[in-house]
């Protein structure tokens, strides 16, 4: 080594001449490092990169899906709201119409009822008048004969008398009808 050093120094060693052992160590060192990088380091990093990319893209896709879903739900709600409003309006209109209908029906019914009541009253009145007529007709003959016999029993010439008889008869009649009314 010493000899070589001296020789080198004597020759003024050329800095461009390499030492082959250094060359060898460099090549082997690089090869070892390259092997480690290819075998372990690079796959690990690439795997992480790929996973990260996937995670981010997956997240974005998921968010987009959620957004789309939310939009769809919003649209649906809006449509439902519109439908509900239309429905409510329709129902209100219907109710109004129905109310009017009911009112009209009631009015008609009331009118009919009142007409029926009036008619019934009329019928009753007629019936009672008929009864009164019948009973009057029955009694008028008797009353007339009764009165006539009394007038005849008394003196028909005396006007005062006859008028008194008539009055008495009438008052009798009144009391008898009153008592008859009481009995009835």
């Amino acid at each position, binding site marked *: 080594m010493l000899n070589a050093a001296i020789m080198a120094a004597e020759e003024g060693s050329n800095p461009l001449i390499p030492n082959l052992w250094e060359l060898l160590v460099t090549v082997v060192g690089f090869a070892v490092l390259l092997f480690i990088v290819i075998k372990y*380091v690079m796959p690990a990093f690439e795997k992480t990169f790929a996973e990260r990319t996937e995670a981010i893209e997956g997240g974005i896709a998921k968010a987009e899906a959620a957004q789309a879903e939310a939009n769809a739900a919003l649209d649906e709600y809006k449509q439902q709201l519109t439908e509900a409003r239309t429905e409510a309006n329709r129902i209100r209109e219907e109710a109004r119409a129905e109310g009017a209908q009911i009112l009209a029906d009631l009015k008609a019914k009331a009118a009919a009822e009142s007409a029926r009541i009036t008619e019934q009253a009329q019928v009753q009145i007629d019936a009672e008048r008929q009864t009164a007529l019948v009973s009057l007709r029955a009694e008028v003959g008797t009353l007339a004969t009764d009165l006539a016999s009394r007038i005849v029993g008394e003196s028909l010439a005396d006007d005062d008398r006859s008028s008194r008889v008539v009055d008495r008869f009438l008052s009798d009649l009144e009391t008898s009808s009153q008592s008859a009314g009481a009995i009835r």
Partner: protein
Amino acid sequence: MIALALPATTTEEGFIAPTIEDTHYPNIFPWGGEYGVLLEPGFGKQMLLMILSVVLIATFFLIASRRNQLVPGKLQFLGESAYGFVRNSIGKDIIGGRDFLKYVPWLFTVFFFVLVNNIFGAIPLLQVPTFSHPGSAYAIAAIFFVLWVGIGLKKHGLRYLKLAVVPAGVPWPILIIVVPIEIISNFIVRPVTHSLRLFATMLAGHLIVTLAGSAIAYMVGTGSILLQGTSVLVLIGFVAMYMLEALIMVLQAYVFTLLAAIYIEGALHADAH
């Protein structure tokens, strides 16, 4: 470096600038390899640092990528950022297409291999950029030369050699001049510059640091008040150069990787150029 420089300055009269030999450390084992000698067997500090860099890079990235979680921790984030930088800023942007991933491990490995080995030059006690030794720079450039020529041949077959040296749409009289230029440029100048660029910048930076250090040691050691005072200026310049050197270390790792990516891309799409 100061310890190395001192013998040179004490045995001779006046200041003797450290030579390139002085920028290298004694071998760790007695049968150490010699700088500038082709076949001297040995194991030196430079080789140790090379192995250390492999261990450091492998350990860091193995730990950083071990527990891969969707939400990364600090270490995983650091590892992912480093990997993602090479993968996207260099691999994807330069090579592009669908198959850039195939070459990302090469770019990733070489970037951190060169980066860490360069940074060694800025770390006290380690203090030698590994690629300031030409052997390592040649080796790493040769690996990529073989890689991109191989990619070209695999992709285009033997036609690749024609595609690489004969530009399309050039009239034939000019081709007589252009083809030799292209051959020299693509297959000789490219790999040589690829390695020498890295080697030369690292060696130059290392030399400057060594020079400044030994100069300070010499000036302080003279006992002259004037020289001792002046050494402060050297120190300021030294620190500035040190910072510049640190920047260049990172930059060269990037440039080396970027050029490797450009060469690979050129080989892949030789028919499009």
